[in-house]
């Protein structure tokens, strides 16, 4: 069980950090309010007012993270079987 859980958790963390990072980089490059989404799935929303900047991460981030975790767990299982 641990052989699958560890790569799943690591893949999830890596994907979550990478996707949120890319979303933040895009938000940093764009002026004003930003809403990054893939179809109906939202990744990040940046709203700027005169005094405050608020950043919200949408469900797309969680979906991408889960996909990363599943991919990493599958890859780890394949590598384990081959070795």
């Amino acid at each position: 069980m641990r052989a699958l859980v560890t790569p799943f958790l690591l893949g999830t963390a890596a994907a979550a950090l990478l996707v949120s990072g890319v979303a933040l980089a895009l938000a940093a490059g764009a002026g004003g309010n930003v809403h990054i989404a893939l179809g109906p799935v939202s990744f990040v929303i940046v709203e700027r007012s005169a005094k405050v900047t608020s950043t919200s991460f949408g469900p797309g981030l969680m979906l991408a993270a889960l996909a990363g975790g599943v991919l990493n767990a599958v890859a780890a299982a394949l590598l384990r079987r081959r070795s």
Partner: protein
Amino acid sequence: MIGVRDHIRLPAGVELTPEGLRDDVRGETFAVNETARALLVGADGRGTAELAELLVARFGIASEAALVDARSFCRALNERFLLNVDALTATRRRRHVDTSTVLAALISTARALAGRAAAVGSLAAAVTFVLLAGLGAPMLGPPLALGAALALSLVLHEGGHAAALRGVPCCVCLAGVAVLLLHRPLPGRRRVLVAVSGPLTAGAAGLAALAVAAAFQLEELGPAALVLLSHVAALTVAGRDGRVACGLS
């Protein structure tokens, strides 16, 4: 290749004892014969030609044969990170890392990697500048930021590993373009912690920089911060750290 004028010395953490060549990092002592002992006694910054002369004087062998023996012996130890060669062309070097505290580990790793980080950062900055100039947009800021981020990411990644190795003897090994930390085998959970701490340290710094870039609309900081953040990809089985954490290598 070790030249006749290259100077050799035992790195910190490796010493010649009556029992043999002691490596504190590996926790092993390697048996040495009389010829090897004679060479290692002279491994205090002398050149390989001087070491060969020691063999000639001690064992009465031909000087050419002694030089070949001395150079091949030094190369074999250098390949195992048991001997450092003071030469610009040396591709394998070992540098001590103090893991007594987290701060000491970070500082000594930074010192050990300062030259490599500066070289990597400068090269990246120069290449980026040339590429931008070729595209008709010669700028100095973004290439410098990218080079600095690359250098910093290298230090933070290895520093993160070293910090997690607190109390465990370790050293930085430079092998060509590769950088690795050498230490004794660790039990399961500690091994995972050490493996993930490097990518997570660099990644956390990248995420923090990106948050600042997004909040203050610092567009130039974005790509540099992404360089730091990209280290988290090493958490997956595509990276060596990820494979170690998953028990795959």
